[in-house]
Every structure is written in structure tokens, then in C-alpha cells.
């Protein structure tokens, strides 16, 4: 019997294996007792040498051309008539050092605002999304209200909401009007909750009806189905756009400075105003990038994973 086997695999398959139980998985079968190592043929060795040469050649070409391009760009930039002035006014290390502390303390306001506004907007957005997905004529007024809300606050520029909230509302001199920072944060929450509500809604609607049917068939009520089955899946599905909105929010919270509080950009602006040098903007930009990179990286990773999973589902 073993003479019928191809010569390559003389003793790989112990005959005891062939009576394994039917439940044995393909992976088990592959793993069991097969010689994993294979000595490449001369042809294959030659092929691989050829491929390696090809790769090295193209990498070299690419690297050299990139290098040449880079050098050319550098020469063009630094040779420009205004380059010295640019370096002085955008890249002055002394100014950078001097402006750093105030920009950092502004950034601290950004971070605190981001945390507070993100929490508020996520919560409010979830509630509004939930209201917007209620079915039946009974909930028409609620649905209509929440729909108008999302349309209005996605349509209005955040700047205007901040102006109205943080400058307009205190002008009414109503009892118990909170401070400017709170009002500005409220404006951010109002605007972003409208965006997040739509993201959540897309997630809720994207959960297949069969999931609801399965949950209801187990005896779960509408609310239980929402809470334990639909929402967890919805949030997972829309995590990429959610994170994207948080990245955008990270930068938009700074607009509160229009109402007075000094955030990082405003701090940079003040430094620019006193030093007549634009380096503080560059410093603030670099700080923002440093702050955003983890968030952006997480977003990318989640997006890709979601996209891959989705496409894996789609293929079946």
C-alpha cells in the first residue's frame, strides 16, 4: 500500500491515524505526524534567488528616486529667497521653548474639555438615536423632535453655536446662568451629540432584523433586545466613525476660546501676538499631532479590522 504513495512522503501518515474519529478537524489531520519540513528543489532555489534580486533592484530604484526627489525639494525650499525669514518666523527654537509652557497649559484645557464633552455627547447622542429609532405612530412627536435636532445641529457651524451659547446666553442675565466654559462645552455637546446620534442610529439600523427576531423569540422584551443585543452590536459596528468624530472633537473643543477661555491654539496665538513670530503655531500643531496620533492609530486599526470583518461576513 505504501508503494502507492508518492515518493515524497514515505512515512508521514501512520496508518493508525486513518481511523481517526469523524469529528477530527482538518487542522488536526494536517498537524498530526506529517513532516512539516520540505527541502526546496534546485529549481525553487533558483526561482527564489531570482525573486530576491528583482526585489532588491526595485527597492534600490525606489529608494534612490525618493532620495533624489527629497534632495531636490530641500534645495528648492531652502534656496527660496524668503527661506531665512521663514525659518526665523516659523522655526525659532528660543520662541518655541518660551511659548511651550503657556501652550501646554492651554492644551490641558483642551484635554479636560475633550473628556467632558465626549462623555456628554456620547450619552446625549445615544439617547437621541434611540428616540429616533422608535417605531409606531405613538412616538411620532418624539421622532420628529429628535430628527429636527439632528438636522439643525449638524447643519449649524459650531462657531455659531458657541457664539450664541457663550456670548448670547449670558447677555440674557437669567438666574443661575453657568460660566462661559460650561456654556461653551454645552455648545460642543449640542453639536457633536447630533453627529454621534446619527452614527449610533446607523449602527442600530445596521443590526440585522434577524438578530432582533432571535432575541424576541427567546422572550426578551423590546427594551431588553435593544439593550443586550442591538446596542452592543451597533456600537461595535460604528466604532470607526465614532472614533473619527472624537478625533475631530479633540480639535474643535478649542473653538471655545472664541468665548474667552485660553486653549492651546489661543495660547499660541497670544504668543504669536507678543513675539511676532509664528513658531508657537508650529509648536501647538506638533503637540496636537502628538496627542492625536494614539487616537488616530486606534481609529485606523479599528476601522481596518471592522472593514475586514465586514468583508469576511459579506463573502461567506
Amino acid at each position: 500500500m505504501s508503494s502507492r504513495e508518492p515518493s515524497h512522503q514515505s512515512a508521514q501518515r501512520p496508518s493508525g491515524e486513518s481511523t481517526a474519529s469523524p469529528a477530527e478537524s482538518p487542522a488536526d489531520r494536517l498537524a498530526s505526524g506529517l513532516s512539516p519540513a520540505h527541502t526546496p528543489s534546485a529549481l525553487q532555489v533558483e526561482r527564489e534567488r531570482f525573486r530576491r534580486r528583482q526585489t532588491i533592484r526595485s527597492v534600490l530604484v525606489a529608494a534612490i528616486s525618493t532620495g533624489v526627489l527629497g534632495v531636490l525639494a530641500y534645495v528648492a525650499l531652502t534656496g527660496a529667497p524668503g527661506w531665512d525669514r521663514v525659518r526665523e518666523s516659523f522655526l525659532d527654537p528660543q520662541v518655541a521653548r518660551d511659548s511651550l509652557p503657556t501652550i501646554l497649559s492651554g492644551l490641558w484645557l483642551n484635554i479636560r474639555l475633550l473628556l467632558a464633552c465626549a462623555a456628554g455627547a456620547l450619552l446625549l447622542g445615544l439617547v437621541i438615536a434611540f428616540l429616533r429609532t422608535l417605531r409606531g405612530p405613538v412616538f411620532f412627536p418624539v421622532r420628529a423632535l429628535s430628527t429636527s435636532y439632528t438636522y439643525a445641529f449638524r447643519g449649524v457651524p459650531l462657531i455659531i453655536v458657541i457664539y450664541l451659547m457663550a456670548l448670547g446666553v449670558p447677555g440674557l442675565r437669567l438666574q443661575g446662568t453657568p460660566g462661559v466654559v460650561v456654556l461653551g462645552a454645552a455648545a460642543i455637546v449640542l453639536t457633536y451629540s447630533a453627529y454621534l446620534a446619527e452614527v449610533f442610529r446607523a449602527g442600530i439600523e445596521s443590526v440585522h432584523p434577524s438578530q432582533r427576531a432571535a432575541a424576541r423569540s427567546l422572550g426578551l422584551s423590546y427594551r431588553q433586545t435593544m439593550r443586550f443585543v442591538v446596542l452592543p452590536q451597533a456600537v461595535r459596528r460604528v466604532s470607526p466613525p465614532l472614533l473619527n468624530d472624537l478625533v475631530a472633537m479633540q480639535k474643535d473643543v478649542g473653538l471655545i476660546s472664541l468665548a474667552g477661555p485660553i486653549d492651546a491654539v489661543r495660547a499660541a496665538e497670544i504668543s504669536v501676538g507678543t513675539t511676532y513670530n509664528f513658531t508657537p503655531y508650529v509648536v501647538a500643531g506638533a503637540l496636537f499631532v502628538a496627542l492625536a496620533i494614539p487616537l488616530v492609530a486606534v481609529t485606523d486599526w479599528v476601522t481596518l479590522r471592522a472593514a475586514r470583518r465586514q468583508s469576511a461576513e459579506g463573502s461567506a
Partner: protein
Amino acid sequence: MPTTPRESASRSTPAASAGPSTTHVLECRDVWKTFGRRPGTPVLRGIDLDVAEHEVVVLIGASGSGKSTLLRCVNLLEQVSDGTIRLDGEEITDPRADADRHRQRIGLVFQSFNLFPHLSVLDNVTLAPRRVHRRARGEAEQAAMELLTRVGLADKAREYPDRLSGGQQQRAAIVRALINSPRLMLFDEVTSALDPELVGEVLALVGDLKQDGMTMVIATHEMGFARRVADRVCFLDRGVILEQGPPEQVLDDPVEPRTRQFLRRLVDDPGAATS
């Protein structure tokens, strides 16, 4: 062991099986279902179906004949357009009835598994006991592990559904429905999304349930399976139960030309069931 089905002969006129009977687990009387605006497309057109305790009824019929719709009506996932459905003599189609409570007593297993992808197998199975029946986590998990062990999934309890083969997913879905100790189990084409090699495990499990005396209604395209597990086979055609009776009679010697035609087509087909 399953009891012998009370009615083994073909019952065709509604009068023959009408009238409430408390020994039936399920009683469908003149059930109609239309979809769309009135008058709408009728999908079920006056179904009468009684299922006795421990009986296994298999629904066969062409695609679109209304098998899934009937099962969904029984589980109250669809509102019937007319007629009544009783479970243990209690009318569950009454608009005043608490649909959630009735659903808990009926297990439904879907063709496409419909496991919750964000929960582990164990959490899938214990969701209803914990949230609906308010059982403690430990207690619910113990019960779940017992059932999972029985179907050979004990080692997969902590896995997520995506990581399981189709057959394993389907068994988990059956366990999820079983843990509510339903009076009645409904199976809708539970094997047709599976590779041929995975079908066996699920069918074996359904056979076990039959041994345990579970009352079941099963929609399937697998004639071999219908033959083995059914106490009674019902042939649905365009929303009507055209013919019913013991599997040997309906499958091997059908009275209706339509049934004969349907079965002939399946046998011609090399991909379909054996004889």
C-alpha cells in the same frame, strides 16, 4: 421515547381536526397570513395544524410555500392575519395576550443560526435565563454547561460564534432555544446553511431531542431527514397543507399530483436527498 402521533392518517378538512383539545400542545386553526397592504399577498391560506405532545411534525414544500412564515407566526414574530393559534389550549394570537411570555415557551431555531456575535456561546445561551427568567448567573451557567456538554460543545463555551463551524453554531443555537425548557421547538431549515459534512451533527442532535420526547415542528428540504425523524409529514403548497400523513405514505406514495411532482424534482436532483 416519543409517543405515537395521535393522528397518523391524512387529515384534510378543517372540520376533522377542529375544536379545542387540551391534549394538543399546538393548535392552529384556519391561520391566514398576508403580506403588504390589503388585500395583500396571501402566504398562508387557512392552515389547520394540530401537534400532539411528543409529536414531531415535519413541514416540506417548495421554496416560498410558506414554511418559514408558518413557524414565525407560531412564534408570534409575525401577526397572523386571521385564525387562531393555541399553545397548550391557551390562545396566543389574542391581541391582549403577553407575546413575550408566550414566546418564552416556544423555542425557534433559524436557518442562519442568528447567534449573537458579540456574546460568547455561554452568554448567548444564558442571556434569556438571566434577563427574562432572572436566574442567577451561576445557576444559569451551570444549566447551560450541562446542555452544552450534552451536545459536545462544552469546550467551546467561552468561544465567540465566529470561531465555530456552522454545525457547532447551529448546535449552540439549538441549546440557546432549549434552555428555556420550551413546550414546543420549531426548526426552520436548520441544516441548509451547513456544509454536507456539518449537517450530520445537527441532525443527530434533533434525533436525540425526539428520543427525549420533545414536541417539534421542523421545516426542511432534507427528505432523508424527514423520513427518519417525522411522526407526520405535512406538504405545504402555496400556503395550504395539501397533504399530510406518516412519512412513508407522503414521501413514497403521495396522493396529490403536486406532491408527487415536488418529490420527483428533488429525486432527479443529484444534490438532493437519497431514497
